[in-house]
């Protein structure tokens, strides 16, 4: 989807601010959110691409203000709610109980947990050990497709319709995130590193002698046949 998360090239975010002696987590809850998400990757509930897409579905202002782990919290809550594992109303009830100092057991009825083995979703496994035949070779000129799905994609908007050169062929069977995020198939395919000149991508705003190198799934690319 075309969203604020796809922010390569945007203006207006000011200087890069470096924090000296930064802790790994800035608050206890950040570490908990990170680790809970990590721990859930073995539950069969959802995959990494779903996690990323859920973050993309945040409203744009919240995306910008909630912070990195705030986005993870948002995605975790939404996915658990949407999949019927932990409902938002339950979280709200638990917060009210915590405030009131009450202790109440969770209700086990009508809950999509545990996940039956036949519907379990693998979190990761981005590569499979099957053979794929790459369409492109190092040195090939490719044009990035004007691909603008409403759903998840890892095609950054700033290289759409741009011409680059294949510099690395990752000839393994990589999962295609656009479909995996929606649990509509793995579509195994090579991933290429494509090199774009700054001028091609940024036009009159390009800095001299800069190159952008982006990893792109085969389905994002067409052979460039023009001059």
């Amino acid at each position, binding site marked *: 989807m075309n969203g604020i998360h796809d922010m*390569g090239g945007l203006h207006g975010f000011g200087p890069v*601010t470096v924090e000296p002696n930064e802790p790994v987590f800035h608050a206890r*809850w950040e570490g908990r959110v990170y*680790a809970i998400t990590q721990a*859930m990757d073995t539950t069969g509930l959802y995959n990494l691409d779903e996690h990323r897409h859920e973050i993309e579905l945040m409203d744009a202002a919240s995306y910008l203000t909630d912070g990195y*782990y705030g986005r993870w919290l948002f995605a975790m809550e939404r996915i658990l709610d949407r999949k019927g594992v932990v409902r938002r109303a339950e979280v709200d009830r638990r917060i009210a109980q915590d405030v009131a100092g009450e202790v109440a057991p969770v209700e086990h009825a009508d809950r999509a947990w545990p996940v039956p083995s036949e519907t379990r979703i693998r979190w990761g496994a981005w590569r499979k050990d099957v053979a794929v035949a790459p369409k492109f070779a190092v040195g090939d000129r490719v044009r990035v497709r004007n691909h603008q799905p409403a759903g998840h994609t890892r095609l950054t908007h700033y290289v759409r319709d741009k011409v680059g050169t294949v510099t690395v062929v990752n000839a393994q069977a990589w999962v295609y995130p656009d479909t995996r995020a929606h649990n509509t198939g793995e579509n195994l395919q090579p991933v290429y590193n494509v090199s774009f000149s700054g001028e091609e991508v940024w036009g009159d705003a390009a*800095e001299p002698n800069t190159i*952008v190198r982006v990893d792109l799934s085969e389905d994002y690319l067409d052979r460039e046949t023009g001059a």
Partner: protein
Amino acid sequence: MSGHHHDHGHDDHDHDHGAEKPWQAVRTEALESLLNDLGIISSARIDEIVSHYEDKIGPKSGARVVARAWTDPAFKARLLADGLAACAELGLGGPETEYLHVVENTATVHNVVVCTLCSCYPWTILGLPPAWYKSSAYRSRAVREPRRVLAEMGLTLADDVTIQVWDSVSEIRYLVLPERPPGAEGMTEDELADIVTRDAMIGVARVQV
């Protein structure tokens, strides 16, 4: 934007709408206690993961890899050919990084890493990324004006040095192999590992003696 006048709380970390505890902390605690009660996670395991990332992994791992590459040409060749396999020789690696490309800085080519879409980073080799790497400013600017961003961060590169920005939006992770600095000729591998910084391995700094 500094100078903006009302309190929306546009920081990149947590923010608080007047409650004593940030709302995100409140929701996280409630969610964790529910997940724990349901047996979906165990808080003891969460404790372990948090301390693993706080104490066990971090840029020191990457620094060992760089120091070894500087002192062992055969290792360096293996590292550039297959990053993860070479890291595994040093006992480094883990489930979160699927594929590691090590990109070497030279006198004429400087590499820098970003993920414009979501802040992907080689966790098992460098630990979790710093806040600036995850900031909107870095993500938006590093691809469009790397020369200016690097200069603002203290690394001014001559115009004849090519800057290659690796936008790591697929599942391949990148580690920059910095140049061995002048003055480090006589240092041991351990001494070298001590001077290699996280920022040098992202590509926003040089290693200095």
